[in-house]
């Protein structure tokens, strides 16, 4: 029972966010919470001005976590993110100045504008949850979550993230334009940055850590395992796909499905949970035969899902 009530607390978090602050962004919020609950990272791929940063800020506000922001440019150095040692003349030695990555939620804005060298430094930090600078290893705070964004339309002067690094993001999703009536509402209401600053935290970081443990203990049925497995196998033998889903992708599918089930207040994974996260978790990891956009990949995943019978008994 504690489990479902916890799950309830988190669904409260994202309900209050989506209703009071971020209308029309339920899906991206839900996926962010899932990424937070699993300890994964999220890549939001959409046009500027649709509220990517707002979502990240609101998430940090409502969870009471620290927030850091990096605006990526082509001259951004790794040390700009990780921090560096500065000589303190008064004390007579170098002291470490942590960079913006030493926050719970890090927004990497327009990640594809950074040089590959910087990208890989960031992504290594994401994977390892620690940073080594001048021989000293610094652990990143726990919970740690990267909220990266990229702009798909403006391709000049960008460095596309390679597949191996895309694979490190648990979830890759878009935001999309809000529905008409919502957009009117947003326009009339104006920006909400100031209101977001005043959000009082609903959960603490300790809550998040215990919720993560509970997510791990969500029951995963054999039927759902075989469902996920058949999904993975189907991507590997699909005509349009060169490289299908990896085993890590399958593990991530399970993790995200568990978190989705937890958010729905259940202590077991249903195939519906897998379906609900399959596109954001797996689409960006596929290497397609002809260069397809993320949307096209999502369509392929959706057709694959429609072909696989859900285990109902």
């Amino acid at each position, binding site marked *: 029972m504690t489990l479902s009530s916890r799950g309830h607390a988190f669904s409260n978090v994202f309900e209050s966010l989506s209703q009071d602050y971020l209308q029309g962004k339920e899906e991206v919020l839900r996926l962010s919470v899932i990424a937070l609950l699993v300890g994964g990272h999220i890549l939001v791929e959409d046009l500027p001005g649709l509220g990517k940063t707002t979502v990240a800020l609101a998430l940090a506000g409502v969870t009471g976590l620290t927030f850091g922001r990096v605006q990526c440019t082509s001259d951004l150095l790794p040390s700009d993110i990780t921090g560096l040692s500065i000589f303190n003349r008064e004390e007579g030695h170098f002291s470490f100045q942590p960079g913006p990555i030493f926050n719970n939620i890090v927004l990497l804005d327009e990640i594809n504008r950074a040089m590959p060298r910087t990208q890989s430094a960031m992504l290594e930090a994401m994977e390892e949850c620690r940073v080594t600078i001048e021989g000293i290893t610094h652990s990143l705070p726990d919970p740690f979550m990267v909220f990266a964004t990229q702009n798909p339309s403006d391709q000049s002067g960008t460095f596309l993230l390679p597949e191996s690094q895309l694979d490190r993001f648990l979830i890759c999703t878009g935001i999309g334009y809000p529905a008409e009536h919502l957009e009117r509402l947003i326009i009339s209401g104006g920006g909400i940055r100031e209101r977001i600053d005043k959000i009082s935290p609903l959960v603490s970081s300790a809550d998040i850590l215990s919720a993560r443990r509970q997510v791990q203990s969500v029951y995963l*049925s054999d039927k759902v395992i075989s469902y996920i497995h058949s999904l993975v196998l189907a991507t590997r033998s699909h005509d349009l796909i060169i490289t299908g889903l990896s085993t890590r992708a399958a593990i991530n599918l399970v993790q995200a499905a568990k978190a989705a089930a937890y958010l729905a207040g259940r202590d077991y994974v249903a195939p519906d949970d897998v379906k609900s996260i399959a596109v954001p978790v797996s689409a960006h990891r596929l290497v397609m035969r002809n260069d397809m956009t993320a949307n096209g990949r999502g369509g392929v995943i959706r057709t694959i899902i429609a072909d696989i019978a859900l285990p109902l*008994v």
Partner: protein
Amino acid sequence: MIAIKNLATILTYVIALCGMIPIFPWLTMFPRMLLILGLISGLWQDIKGNWQLKPWFQNILITPIFLYYALQYSRTNPIQPVISVLTIMLTVRLSGEKTVRHSKQIYALSIFCLASSSLYDLSPVFLLYLGLLLFMVAIALILLTFQSQDAGMLVTKLDLKRILIFGIMIPVISVPLILFFFPIMPRTQLPLWNFLNPLPSGTSGYSEIVEPGSKSNVSASHSLVFRAEMPRQEDSKLYWRGTVFNFTDGIKWTRTLQIPPENIYSNKSTVNQLIFPEPSAVRTLFSLDRPVTISLQRIKLSPDGVFELSRVGGRRINYSAESNNGGNVTQLNNINRRFYLQLPEQFPTRLKELSSRLIRFGNSDRKRVEYLENFYRLSHLRYSTNNLPIGDRVLDRFLFEIKQGNCEYFASSFALILRSAGIPCRLVGGFFGGEYNKLGGYYLVSEDKAHVWVEAFIEGEGWIRIDPSSFAENSGEVWSKKGSKNLVFRLTLAIDSFNHIWNRSVISYDLEQQISFASQLGSSFRGIQPLKRIWNVIPYIVGCLLITSIYFISKRMSLFNSREQRILNRFLKLIKLKFNISTVESGCGLFEVTSVANCSKVSNFVGIYAAAIYHDRRLTDKEYEKLMKILKDMQS
């Protein structure tokens, strides 16, 4: 979770036992001991988990034994060495490690052992063992297939249940085919293994000779002589006629080879019987007194109404008989009086006196017989099978001194006196009484029912049956003695009727019945009476329906579906009807259904159902009831 290997090993032992138990009573001492030792050592090694006896060692060990039995084999003794070798091979495999290959060998050997036990005794129990064996071998082979893929494989209870169901399906599906092929497959008229079964020699109750005074105590076994399918008769008329004794030397009564001709005319209503004798060395065919016809090939009918097999086959036979239950048969022609009046040279004086009293008293045969009957009734004779008179003058002493004897004394003394008084007569040997099995509709006649009575020829009436034993003082209590009708007895009768059906429809089923079955089938197709034809055809229609319904059911599997599948199907149908959501075609999950339907009942249902299903467990009874209730609510 259970390890497949353990399961297969346990099953292997049970299968081996199913093959061993039926053959065990027929084995000699050495294979018996070896079998027990092998079983124990195999079990011990399996429990310990290491196998001391290596296959090569065992092979070397048993080679001399095989040689020994090979030398034992001969035409007169063909079967014992073979079954000994079979059981020793089984022993060897049991005592070694149960690899997949060895297990399969054990199954084959067990089936061979069971099959060879049928050479000795083909009782209905064989069917039980065979059924068990086939069922278990089917399951064991499935398990072995798994084991051969992965020796350490574990199996869940659910999978085990599925394997069990498949294991049952294989033999069950084949049963209708067996029933179908049994009547139509070709078969030989002669038993294949006739020489193997020595005939049960002689019988203790019924004998081909009547000799009162040879033993002081007579005890007869309760072993079965024959069964007679027929409607129930009056107890006092249950005389089963066998043979006729027509010659006496004063003590012994025997049957001569030459029988004077007579003509029999039956004018009474007849009783039809279908008689199934147990195999024995006796040639006489029994039937209710007095038989008119017995229909069986290769039988000999004597003029005095005795039917005999011309050759003793030792196999199960059956025959239909038509009898005149009055026991009296009108004889129009004169008989050979001299033949039936033959007297021995020595004749006890007191019996002689009695017969002369008879002649003086009555002026007709009828009256003389009645006088003698009265004399027997008033003599305070007792019927007994113990303390019988023996030695010289037995009949004299029986009638005037000891006044105690069994049917042989009564009948032979009575017949002797009648002959001496000039009335032609003979002794008839057969059985009296029998237990009626209501379930099977037949009489059971056992050895202890053996009986001897008298047939006297009276001018104008013919041969009349007189049972002198019925004049005994205690005849009432002896003859009307009821068997204990308790539960055990009734159960025995019920088991016997099953035995009878087995003998009738399996063992003694032969070419003739096959032909009659075929002709019956043919005539029923072009029969004249439509109603009768329908009755004949109904069983086949029912059979066909059964087979087709099994086919369709297994196709649809709706009956074999689990409770979960059934309730889900109902739910999905209802959803489609009420909310127009086709789940299966659109690949829609249960929770998606809830969000689309937006109905509390639907979400309740899905909540309970999915919690069970995606926890990998079955629905509990309580949950099931709840779900059914929700479905009902949704329907209304």
